[in-house]
């Protein structure tokens, strides 16, 4: 079985980043970049499947500039078998990403595409579902448990009101949520070994143009400063005065 895990290079999700004063972009300064944490969960899950069944082959793919090689190497260090970089500096939105990933899927014929539910930079939560639509594959988003059998997948997914279980024939697409797993710590030998794993580069396969573009970035307005109260009685009085009780 072949598993394809698309990953995105994102600005360090734990760093505080602000818009540039003129709103034209992000002030990333010396902030580091990393693998989108939800994609990291997808890589971890694929690697666990491989550890349980060594016949499973895990390919990671990223779309972007040459610098994305760093994130692909990290995914290889997790235990993925090979990496593909669709190298481009073109402007992209989720529709372009889904269209390019569709071409990669047609090229590699995976049985399962496993990817993060959203990227922590643009927070779109679109690419997985768009890709599943283009492929005509069943989808299970927000996965918190995945079991792959022969030709089928059973996915427990989080919903607005609890959880549900979906069963799908392969090939299918699954997007990962926080509670699927906790990605492992990558030991040094893994990172060293990853340097020798295959990483191929290819140009874009389509000429799809983005259908959205970001024209401006701003900081949200700050909340007006509040005050501390000294006791529960004082709190109750303040809430009554505010009219929220």
């Amino acid at each position, binding site marked *: 079985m072949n598993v394809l895990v698309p990953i995105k290079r994102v600005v360090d*999700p734990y760093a*505080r*980043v*602000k*818009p540039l004063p003129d709103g034209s972009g*992000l002030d990333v300064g010396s902030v580091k970049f990393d693998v989108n944490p939800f994609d990291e969960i997808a890589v971890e899950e694929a690697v666990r499947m491989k550890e349980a069944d060594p016949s499973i082959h895990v390919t990671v793919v990223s779309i972007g500039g040459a610098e994305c090689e760093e994130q692909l190497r990290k995914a290889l260090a997790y235990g993925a078998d090979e990496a593909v970089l669709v190298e481009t500096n073109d402007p992209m939105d*989720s*529709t372009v990403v*889904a269209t390019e990933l569709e071409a990669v899927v047609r090229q590699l014929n995976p049985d399962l595409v496993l990817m993060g539910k959203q990227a*922590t*930079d*643009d*927070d*779109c*939560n*679109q690419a997985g*579902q*768009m*890709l*599943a*639509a283009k492929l005509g*594959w*069943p*989808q*299970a*988003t927000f996965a918190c448990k995945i079991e792959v059998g022969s030709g089928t997948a059973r996915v427990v997914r*989080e919903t*607005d009101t*609890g*959880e*549900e*279980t*979906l069963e*799908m*024939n392969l090939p*299918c697409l699954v997007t990962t949520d*926080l*509670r699927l797993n906790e990605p492992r710590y990558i030991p040094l030998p893994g990172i060293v070994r990853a340097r020798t794993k295959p990483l191929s580069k290819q140009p874009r396969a389509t000429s799809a*143009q*983005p*259908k*959205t*573009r970001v024209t401006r*970035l*701003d*900081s*949200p307005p700050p*909340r007006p400063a*509040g*005050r*501390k*109260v*000294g006791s*529960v009685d004082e*709190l*109750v009085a303040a*809430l009554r005065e*505010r009219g*929220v*009780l």
Partner: protein
Amino acid sequence: MKSLFVAFAPGEAEHAAGFFATLGGDWAATEVPPGLVADAAAAALRSASEGFTHIAAVSSMRSKDVLARLAGLLDAAMVTDAVSINSPTSFVRPIIAGTVLATVETMAQPVVVTFRPSGFSGDSAPGQMVSLPTPPEGQAKRTAENVRGGSRPDLSQAKRIVSGGRPLKDAETFERVIGSLADRLGGAVGATRAAVDSGIAPNELQVGQTGKIVAPDLYVAAGISGSTQHMAGIKDSKCIVAINTDPDAPIFEFADFGLVADLFQAVPELASKL
């Protein structure tokens, strides 16, 4: 310009009025029945959405699941979590866990939008109801479902919310302390990601950028430090109350009223004095 509102849950139509009053133009409404898997729902919506310039729904896990798939089928432009509208082709939405607001221009039609209702006011009504065509059999099959909830109001629409963090220790303590105050207020219960991850509270109660985005009149945060991720989910609340033993907790910077106190004493005391 003609828009289609897709309702996924009861009570969403009232939120749609404000959104479409701001967007302008005529709008129609359709309803996706509960229990329809995403591939079947999106296929049915594909034919229902013919002729509409905008297809919009209230942001939820379900609407994102279905509408992003619909956008893929329609080759549409998509905007997730719109919080305001500049024009029918320009929307504002939060990115990077709500720390930045992005203005997004759409360059194709149709436009598929999920929106956060708290950002919109105004009155409008749907011109017609569109019945959803019979959906195809789902490729995915739902084989089990665990719907939790009970008698409390729905978190994403509640006027009052009491949330707890990891200091609540375990599920029983969480329910006893947080649940009691919520019931006293007639409100919903929420939780931090840390509380959910450690099994103190169920996943659907998670409030924050990757959980539910809420905007109640009153939000009481007990034992919550105020991570960026959590604050992104509550910043549109009208009044935020923080109860925390740590006077330097970041949540005190955001709270309208802060009480430095042990939540195990202060929360029951608050409940008893309401």
